[in-house]
């Protein structure tokens, strides 16, 4: 199981990379394995912000559908448009090319509640 250090994790099996006040969100290697092959990533292209703990889209995979929950609040800067035609990037490269959205983190201190790699890894065992 690949759980890179340096990222923040949620109990919903998402990761956030924090660079300054920009957050990048994706799903973890564990999550993509549980979902099976991802066939659609459904994030409204007109979505302009996310709110902590609220849904911002869904992932349809062969085995199940999974809601995406925002780990934090902020303005959306970019949605990964590559996923439209290559949703399988979530399976093949969940921490890289399979990223979902970039957003401007409204409150950096709110991220303190998220898990680090070690805590996330112990959640899985």
């Amino acid at each position, binding site marked *: 199981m690949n759980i890179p250090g340096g990222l923040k994790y949620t109990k919903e099996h998402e990761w956030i990379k924090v660079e300054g006040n920009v957050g990048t969100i994706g799903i973890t290697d564990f999550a993509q*394995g549980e979902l*099976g*092959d991802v*066939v*659609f990533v*459904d994030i409204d292209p007109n979505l302009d912000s996310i709110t902590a703990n609220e849904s911002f889209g*869904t992932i*349809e*995979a*062969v*085995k199940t*559908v999974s809601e995406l929950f925002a780990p934090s609040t902020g303005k959306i800067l970019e949605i990964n448009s590559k996923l439209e035609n290559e949703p*399988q990037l979530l*399976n093949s490269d969940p921490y890289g090319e399979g990223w979902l959205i970039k957003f401007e983190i409204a409150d950096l201190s709110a991220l303190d509640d998220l898990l680090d790699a070690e805590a996330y890894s112990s959640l899985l065992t």
Partner: protein
Amino acid sequence: MKKTKFYSIHEKLGAKLVDFAGYKMPIQYSSIIGEHKCVRESVGVFDVSHMGEVRIKGERALDFIQNITVNNASVLVDGKVQYSAMCYEDGGIVDDLLVYRIAENEFLLVINASNIQKDVDWMKKNNLFDVDIIDESDEYSLLAVQGPKSIDVLQKICADTIKLEYYTFFNTKCAGVDVLLSRTGYTGEPGYEIYFKGSESEAEKIWSAIFEAGTEFGIQPIGLAARDSLRLEMGFCLYGNDINQTTNPLEAGLGWITKLKKENFIGKNEIAQIKENGLSRKLVPMVCDERVFPRTGYSIQVDGKKIGYVTSGTVSPILEKPIALGYVDISYVELGQSVNIMIRDKEVPAKIVKLPFVEK
């Protein structure tokens, strides 16, 4: 939890294993879609040893089969296979199955893993012809080798020349192991199923021989997830999803195996009555154009009114479109009928099409 003779191989290959019908079974090895395409384009191997095998022996074995199944087994000759079903008195389906005629007084019934105990109980309860009913499910291993290249792979490891027509079988040796080789499958591709009773080491011998012979064709192990999408592209029914004790064979599109002209079989009267009264619903194939995933249980509507529900659905890896089977009220079953599948409170337009979803 039971394990098949290939369990340690699956583990070594890093398969994702799930509990299925009391067995630890591989649901996927690499990518479900990749595995699916491998079978359509070349050849893949499925461990389906969880399936049940019940031997019926006795002077009146044929009478027993004729009574308990809906198809006409009297047309079978040695070496021939028939798709059939067992029904309850009320016409509900006990299970769908394959009937192998081994000899005049001996048949092998291949049944769904999740129904083994129920089916054997049903057979024993309806043993009016004093036959031996022998559950050999735990002894048999079963590999399905499916895809256009399946014959090229198997011919390399089979002791005899394989000249099997669709739905026939013969006894031979594969990789030196005694097997029953059958030209059957659940994928719509040319393919074979290899039944054998042997140890784990013999199972490994057959597995390795198949993969060695298949290397040049890019052979891959295939999990249950791709098995499901492959059968669904063909519109083949899955017991527990598309058929069960509350569905009758006529509405499930299995009228072609239900021989109402046969003298008698369990469920015949009720099914004949259903036919005379007319069906109230039918299992229909549907295709959507939107980016959604129709799943079991989703409601089907027309003009805001519920007219049915989805029994199986997926996104076809070949069509790259959502496909589904579902029961729909008889007023809406015409080819080309527009319906809405309700996906998380959203109406998603779909159309009734004809089977198979993927032309072969």
